[in-house]
């Protein structure tokens, strides 16, 4: 169950206890998130068990190998800040059907077509909020979200992460699959946190483990 793929050369000291705790915290959050999302969209919502990856930018290829799948499509990112800082990347592959989700957010069929990007931005916002709300609550910390942005229409997420001018070096990446029964396709959520904030994250966890 705690099936986490560890990077072999993680510089950060992550003992099993903390890893276990982090995984459990995310599992619980996903359960809560799936439940409230189902309420909102009135459809079966599925969120996979988060996969933890410890990544260095020089080895994004390893991340690619470790990931369950490397999706390609419209990529939307949303920053979060507060006690922790990071970004959520959501990738929507081509061919997903958003009509039912859209209807549950009061978009007509035509609007789903016409305003697909806005709809995806809103879905991303809701997903990000739902997934991290539980984490913030359990750790008893404050988290706020910035506006989501469409950053690419047709790329692999790893290409975005690899962008050589981006400023991160090492990061924790949580890989979560998201699907709604009517969507007939899985989307991918990556919750990414740079190294500096992971130590803060573990401080909170240590508190829980006392």
């Amino acid at each position, binding site marked *: *169950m*705690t099936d986490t793929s560890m990077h072999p050369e993680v510089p950060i000291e992550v003992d099993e206890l903390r890893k276990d705790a982090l995984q*459990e915290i995310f599992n619980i959050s996903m*359960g809560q998130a799936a439940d409230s999302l189902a309420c909102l969209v009135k459809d079966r919502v599925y969120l996979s*068990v988060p996969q933890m990856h410890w990544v260095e930018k020089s080895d994004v290829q390893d991340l690619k190998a470790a990931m369950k799948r490397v999706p390609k499509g419209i990529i939307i990112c949303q920053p979060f800040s507060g006690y922790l800082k990071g970004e959520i990347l959501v990738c929507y592959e081509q061919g997903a059907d958003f009509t039912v989700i859209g209807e549950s957010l009061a978009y007509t069929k035509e609007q789903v077509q016409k305003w697909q990007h806005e709809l995806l931005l809103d879905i991303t916002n809701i997903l990000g909020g739902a997934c991290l709300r539980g984490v913030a*609550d359990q750790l008893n910390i404050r988290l706020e979200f910035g506006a989501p942005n469409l950053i690419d229409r047709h790329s692999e997420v790893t290409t975005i992460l690899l962008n050589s001018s981006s400023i991160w070096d090492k990061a924790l990446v949580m890989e979560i699959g998201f699907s709604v029964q009517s969507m007939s396709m899985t989307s991918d959520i990556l919750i990414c946190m740079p190294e500096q904030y992971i130590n803060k994250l573990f401080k909170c*966890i240590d508190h*829980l483990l006392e």
Partner: protein
Amino acid sequence: MKITVCDDSLMSRKSVIRALPETWSGAITQCKHGLEALEACRAGLADILFLDLTMPIMDGLEVLTRLKSEQIKVSVIVISADFQPKVQQQVMQLGALAFINKPLTQEKLEGTLKQVGLL
């Protein structure tokens, strides 16, 4: 009162143990997966079993099924992050006393224990 706590996450086991009523005393057995829990029950180490659902080797549903078929009398309280109503129903049908959503808090546990008459 003998208590067994079964969860693959150490943190979750700790949070259960931490939330137990102060008035309770007795041996506490910790299990990392369903099979260990089943053996603990067979060995009579559990009056009350706190049981997670999603676990390696043997999951919680399987433990409940075995306990029922082997007619071992244990009060089982399921604590899980899986919220699906269907799963909750199934758990109750298999003879669990109660279902608690994670994360567990002292108040939630106390409420539930009172509700099922264990407190």
